[in-house]
């Protein structure tokens, strides 16, 4: 038999630089967890795996490669290193056994991009109807909306450092959108740059 087969993210190493940078973030573990978000068991297993506090409505809490994001009243997205997903899933099944819940590995379902630069917000504002101004879209908020013609979600890792996720099949489209919107010479100069 041949050697170990290689796993790939949607657009390995894809990167573009304009007035902002766009980089594909590579493989990352992700689990969709649906259940009663008010139940302590769900909270515990989610925060345990995420290594962060339970986020509120529209919230996301991150630390390094881990995060817990609120996706809907009965859905969380847990993020972690790619290799840790199976263990995490096992943990969930063990903890929530007998409860009504759904947990699926969705690590390969999505593609992720980092939009970085002082004017990163402008790149998004060209493509989404969501309000991405500093007061409406601060750190700690995850916004699910549209980017161009496809659904996407985005949040701030830090000011000037926005993470965007979309479905894997449209990774190229979304990358092209972001790269095009970030082209040098198309700055809008709308959002005041924090100093």
């Amino acid at each position, binding site marked *: *038999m*041949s050697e*170990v*087969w*290689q*796993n*790939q*993210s949607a657009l390995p190493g894809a990167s573009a630089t304009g007035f902002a940078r766009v980089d594909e973030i590579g*493989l990352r573990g992700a689990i*969709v967890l*649906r*259940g009663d978000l008010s139940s302590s068991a769900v909270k515990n297993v989610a925060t345990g795996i995420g290594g962060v506090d339970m986020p509120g409505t529209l919230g996301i809490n991150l630390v390094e490669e881990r995060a817990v994001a609120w996706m809907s009243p*009965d859905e969380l997205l847990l993020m972690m290193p790619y290799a840790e997903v199976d263990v995490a899933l096992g943990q969930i099944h063990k903890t929530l056994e007998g409860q*009504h*819940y*759904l947990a*699926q*590995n*969705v*690590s*390969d*379902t*999505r593609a992720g991009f980092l939009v970085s630069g002082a004017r990163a917000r*402008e790149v998004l*504002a*060209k*493509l*989404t*109807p*969501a*309000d991405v*101004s500093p007061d*409406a879209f601060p750190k700690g908020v995850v916004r699910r909306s549209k980017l*161009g*013609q*496809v659904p996407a979600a985005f949040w701030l890792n830090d000011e000037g450092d926005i993470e965007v996720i979309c*479905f*894997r*099949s*449209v*990774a*190229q*489209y979304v990358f*092209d*959108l972001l790269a*095009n*919107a970030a*082209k040098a*010479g*198309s700055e*809008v100069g*709308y959002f*005041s740059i924090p100093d």
Partner: protein
Amino acid sequence: MSTRLATGGRLIDHAAPMTFTFNGKEMQGYAGDTLASALLANDRMLVGRSFKYHRPRGIMASGAEEPNALVGLGRDGQFEPNQRATTTELFDGLESTSQNHWPSLDHDIGAVNQYLGRVLPAGFYYKMFLYPRAFWKHVYEPFIRHSAGLGKAPQDRDADSYEHFHVHVDVLVIGGGIAGLQAACAAGRTGAKVLLIEQTAHWGGRAPVDGGVVDGISVDAFTQNLIAELDAMENVTMRLRTMGAGVYDHGYVLGYERRTDHAPDMGGPRHRLWRIRAARTITATGAIERPLSFSGNDIPGVMLASAVRDYAVNFGVAVGDRTLVVTNNDDGYRTAIALKNLGLDVPAVIDARPAGGGALAQEAASLGIRIETGKAVAKALGGKRITGAAVCAQAGTGSVDEEIECDCIAMSGGWSPVVHLWSHCGGKLIWDADHAFFRPDPARPPLGAEGQGVVMAAGSANGALDLAIALADADYAGRKAAEATGYRPKRGRPPEAEQAGEAPILPVWQMPEGADQTLRAKTWLDFQNDVKVTDVQLAAREGFESVEHTKRYTTLGMATDQGKLSNINGLAVLSEALGQAIPATGTTTFRPPYTPISMGAIAGEARGDLFQPLRRTPMHEWHEANGAEWEPVGQWRRPYCYIQGDETPADAVTREVTAVRQSLGLLDASTLGKIIVKGPDAGQFLDMMYTNMMSNLGIGKCRYGLMCNENGFLIDDGVVARIDADTWLCHTTTGGADHIHAHMEEWLQTEWWDWQVYTANVTEQWAQIAVVGPNARNLLEKFTDDDLSAEAFPFMTWKDVTLNSVRARVFRISFSGELSYEVATPAGMGRAVWNELLAGAEEFGATTYGTEALHVLRAEKGFIMIGDETDGTVTPQDLCLNWAVSKKKHDFIGKRGQQRSHLCDPKRWRLVGLQTLDGSVLPDGAYAATQARNANGQRKTIGRVTSTYYSPTLKRGIAMGLVENGPQRMGEVIDFPMLDGTVQQVRIVDPVQYDKAGEKQNV
């Protein structure tokens, strides 16, 4: 003649000359010029031809309301027709050409139309060209079309790019004149998030031209202060060259930013469409001067008085050496005074008001300007440019007192507030008789989501023509708007301006009052569309009494300026003709955009590769690199077949089908939908979703299922696998993935919300590869030690298999009738697994195959395909799939629908196989028909083809179709009329035409 003054021109830079061309002729202008001011500086009075009569046309205005000066700009991929010279900023190397004439602007054959004017009245099209019938298409219409249109149509693909930008603000201020600036300041001072947009390249609007004193300083200095203050506010954004294009529901406003029109080499997007959500919008869009209606008011050299003033003050251009001013209000005097102060000759001011004007009139008189009150222009003299004016009494019928020589007539018919944006979204107007204009009715504003008024008008756009009142009005609007969005305005007085003591306007809709037919027939209302006073009067006489009727019948206000100059004058003439007051007549509907915006800007970035998302499977690049002939399926692209060497697609399909039947083929099935359904009530839920039973499906087993809508018609099908006690995996069609998932969620959220079920669409988590053919097992066994034998892994089951250390979920199902496995691995692994399986498959002479081979394979087996055998009107029973429709279940989605009389009609068309007697391939879409005809004379049809292919396996055409109670007519031969008049004889046969026993898939 029209010339550039040695000095002056507040907007131009005498130190920065620029070269441009008009109709190929090189001309000079300055930075800061508009194309219009530069043309005038070069004494170019005749700039175009009118739409209908091809009359000579000159520049009439200095802004967005210009009806005449439309030019073609640029060339090739950057050519743009119908651009207004008055809103085109000059740049070095600008190329412009005039429009709508042949052979040349100065000598235009079409100009004969103006002598036919009499036989081309309003609506003449409707009364002429009636006979003979054939002539309309072949003679009349081609002639009319040829003379129609203004600019040339672009030929090439647009060389520029465009984009959108979404913003959410508290207060949007549209218009950067003094009112807009003041309103934005008042709002900005409260801390509200403010966006201020101005369509021109300059702040301040008319005020600096018209002059005045505010808070003790010149209005010019005052506006500079406002701009400086706004600039310093963090919470305020200011954008020039950005027009408020349209106001839509729920506070949605479009801003049209012309980024590079004035600097084509600047790079970046040409236009940017701002998509603004504003809690409150202030329209400080100013006012537009009205022309006066006198004979010959369309001759080049007749211009709005304010425009004459603008060209002199802003651009240092004297439109004429001798400018006659004709007015019915005080504002006209401002032009006379401005020109006089620049040392230009003003032979007289013709003031229609018997009592004449106020303070400004006195100032003019003191400058030694001759003033004639109670007078009118009976007739403007000249052809391609003004040579003089015949003056008469306004009260009379036009008997001429004297002729005054002049080369420019500056006319002022009063002002109309720009109410377009206020009106786009339902804002209502009131007629202000004192000022003779419509202005926004503050009591009936456009309403927002909470039923509150969300738009306010400010300044002259609100009818406040006087500087002092306009400033107070704007200040109030700014504060109110901010307050409404939750900010607290500080107290403080609005700026104070000296009020000019103006005498009231005298509405003059016809000059002179009693003008006779010959004069009225040469009095223009709509300069671009050639609508005259007599046309409107004729429309009224013929019963086109609604303003909308008159507009459509005469084309008044339907030109590219959308009647900015003509509407009110036309309205007044119509009202007079109908003997009713102007408000009783009402206005036509104002529709977006305020001035035309580029289609490119509307589409934004969505062009070329970004036109629509293209969904790609993990193996997409491989297909592309290996001869895939693509077939769009929704937003996916799937390989239709793979072309090798000089194969035709048909050859390729034949090769692919044969390989699968004889040995082995691989198909990228990743696009198939995969939905996880989990929970204590999941089985019960799936029993409602599918027509057949799913709750009793054994763990580890697979079952083919059908889904219907409530109408009972088939919408999707696929294999369902039981994963564990409370988890099912539902496969859908490629197109179905998203909407079937949505369909499930809809029922769960809105009907059975008490059922304990969760779903997840995991379609994109998995790459799925169909390994199909007699050697399928042999191939997989090369990669695993797991037991894949028929006993350990029977047909219609699934199991987790380790393929070279990769955990794969393998379904033993078949859509081809062959031994077949569908191998699902995490999407990220898909490409690697695909490559390795292909490498391993070489020894079996395997091939990859596409959707067409897939279709042929399933058709040979009589398997139905959603979208081919179904079209939204077909039931499972029609397809003889009753075995998959549970009789036991008391309910499922579609069950009740299928009980309706028409759906259980025994005469329904049902699925059969079709075989042409000569073995040829039946054409797609063909119908079977009898000789009978229905009451409407249509041939009676009794069936149709749903799928038809050449079968490489059977070496003949095979087809499936729906035939009137077909299953009872096996062996019967029916007629399929062909389009060439021949008839195909076709035998009704069993849909399954290959391996009826189904042995091959069971080995």
